[in-house]
């Protein structure tokens, strides 16, 4: 409504999509015919499909969390969170399309458990471990679960969006308490789904390997990237003169969330890594052996980026209130978490054949362009500041 996509933003979006298309085209032209090309293409589909989908999902989670905990300060940035969460249906469509293609290709060497030969005792590809897991890891149950996740997320997202606009019109606390209940209910679903969906979509790429921590690890990375996106979107809208009720303290709080979730992610990274390193069991170490052998430099630099950067730079109060620091650190962390997803996925699907070329970068830029366009477009459709949120007054006077 009050916000329109500016000319600069349009140029950025077209630039990203254009560069993305060109690089993807180069990648397609040069890579076509390679042995692992289709696997590589679909691996990129999962990486970018999941990464950008997870940004929307993280925003939905944060919205539900704020409702369930009756948080006050976030009321004036609520529409930004909703705008980012609004990417969810588009993310689902893209990610779902990639998953569907992979299913029709019998796993495309990514989800090897989708290959019927793996569970056929007469085949010479027969894999006893995967056969043992086939009660859970089979295409039909996989799709049932995926559709359940998608539909639950979508139902809650629609509900929150609808009530948010309605609240502007009617006011009162009835809608607020409904949001409160729905937020808490969502968290119950999300507590289970965040783990199981990470197992289904990402962990099952390394079908022999498992880690109970994997779901939280993926979730922490997602949450951190989402907070970065929220900070940057808020700062962007603020720089255009919108969100006049957002002050330094809100920015500071969003920065704090970025800082805290970076730690959460590093903590879970380390917990998973150290336990497996210490126990040193053959079945478990394969995951890290594969990644350290083939991705040594990016794997550890990714950890340094996602841990040390936010720790050292975002620690001070002034840094969390400095727009330049927040934006530059945010971009770096965002790339770091993209690399994290990149290694999670291609470490299992391509292993030693994986490398970052123009296809990888091109597809990421393309998706980033679509993501930014969708989020900004969502923001043009609603008033940027809610008027009847019961905690709006508290949020306006937020001071830390």
């Amino acid at each position, binding site marked *: 409504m009050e916000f329109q996509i500016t000319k600069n933003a349009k140029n950025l979006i077209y630039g990203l999509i254009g560069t993305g298309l060109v690089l993807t085209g180069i990648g397609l032209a040069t890579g076509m015919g390679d042995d692992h090309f289709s696997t590589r293409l679909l691996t990129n589909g999962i990486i970018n499909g999941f990464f950008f989908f997870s940004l929307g999902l993280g925003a939905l989670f944060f919205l539900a969390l704020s409702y369930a905990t009756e948080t006050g300060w976030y009321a004036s940035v609520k529409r930004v969170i909703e705008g980012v969460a609004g990417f969810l249906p588009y993310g689902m469509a893209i990610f779902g399309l990639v998953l569907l293609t992979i299913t029709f290709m019998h796993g495309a060497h990514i989800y090897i458990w989708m290959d019927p030969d793996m569970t056929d005792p007469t085949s010479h590809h027969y894999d006893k471990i995967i056969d043992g897991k086939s009660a859970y890891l089979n295409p039909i149950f996989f799709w049932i679960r995926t559709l359940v996740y998608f539909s639950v997320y979508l139902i809650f997202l629609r509900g929150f969006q609808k009530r948010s606009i309605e609240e502007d019109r009617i006011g009162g606390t009835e809608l607020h308490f409904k949001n409160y209940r729905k937020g808490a209910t969502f968290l119950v679903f999300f507590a289970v789904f965040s783990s199981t969906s990470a197992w289904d979509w990402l962990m099952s790429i390394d079908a022999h390997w498992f880690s109970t921590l994997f779901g939280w690890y993926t979730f922490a990375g997602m949450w951190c990237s989402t907070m970065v996106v929220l900070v940057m979107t808020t700062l962007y809208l603020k720089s255009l003169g919108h969100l006049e009720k957002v002050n330094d303290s809100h920015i500071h709080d969003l920065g704090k969330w970025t800082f805290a979730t970076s730690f959460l992610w590093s903590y879970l990274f*380390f917990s998973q*890594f*150290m336990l497996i*390193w*210490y*126990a*040193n069991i053959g079945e478990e170490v394969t995951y890290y052996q594969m990644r350290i052998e083939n991705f040594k430099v990016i794997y550890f630099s990714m950890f340094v980026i996602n841990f040390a950067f936010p720790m050292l730079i975002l*620690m*001070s*109060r002034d840094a969390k209130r400095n727009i330049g620091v927040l934006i530059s650190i945010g971009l770096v962390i965002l790339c770091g978490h993209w690399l994290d997803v990149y290694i999670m996925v291609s470490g299992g699907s391509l292993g030693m054949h994986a490398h970052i070329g123009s296809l990888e970068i091109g597809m990421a830029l393309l998706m980033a362009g679509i993501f930014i366009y969708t989020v900004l477009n969502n923001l043009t459709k609603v008033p940027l500041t809610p008027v009847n949120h019961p905690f709006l007054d508290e949020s306006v*006077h937020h*001071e830390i």
Partner: protein
Amino acid sequence: MSDKVIYVMYDDDEVLKDGAKKLVSKGVKINEVFSPFPIHGIDPIIGVKQTRLGIMAFLYGLTGLTVATLGMRYFMVVDWPMNIGGKPNFSYLQNMLAFVPITFEFTVLCAAHGMAITYLLLNKTLPGMPAQNPDPRTTDDKFVMEIRLNENPSMSEGDLDAIIKETGFIEIDKKDIK
């Protein structure tokens, strides 16, 4: 040096805040405000400097990090190499991962305790220290502003009284200190 201190009592934090704004705008220096709970936004009004406790916490944390690293290297590698799960026990660096949890815990322990003790010490509120607030009612439902005469050399006591009278206080109390 002798000095006179004025305690002005209010029964509402917003009234005190407005009063403080009025006093400061007329050039009065307010030395301290006593309140049963933190008053949002009072710090910039009376000119309290941003706390440097965070910097101290960082330094205490660094101390903890260093002590833990040196200590564990000495205990587990140099003095008596410990063989745990067959991990390399001749080198700190190769076995570093095993030491991370303890390093982390000790860093947090030092930062938290150092910060808490520094805070209590600076505020003179360590257990057993005499109370600093002028009136026990400031721990219940009253708010007191403290103004010192020799911090306001440009104003006489009468000038101050006249300005304070406009701020809606409920009680005023003066004390000579040596």
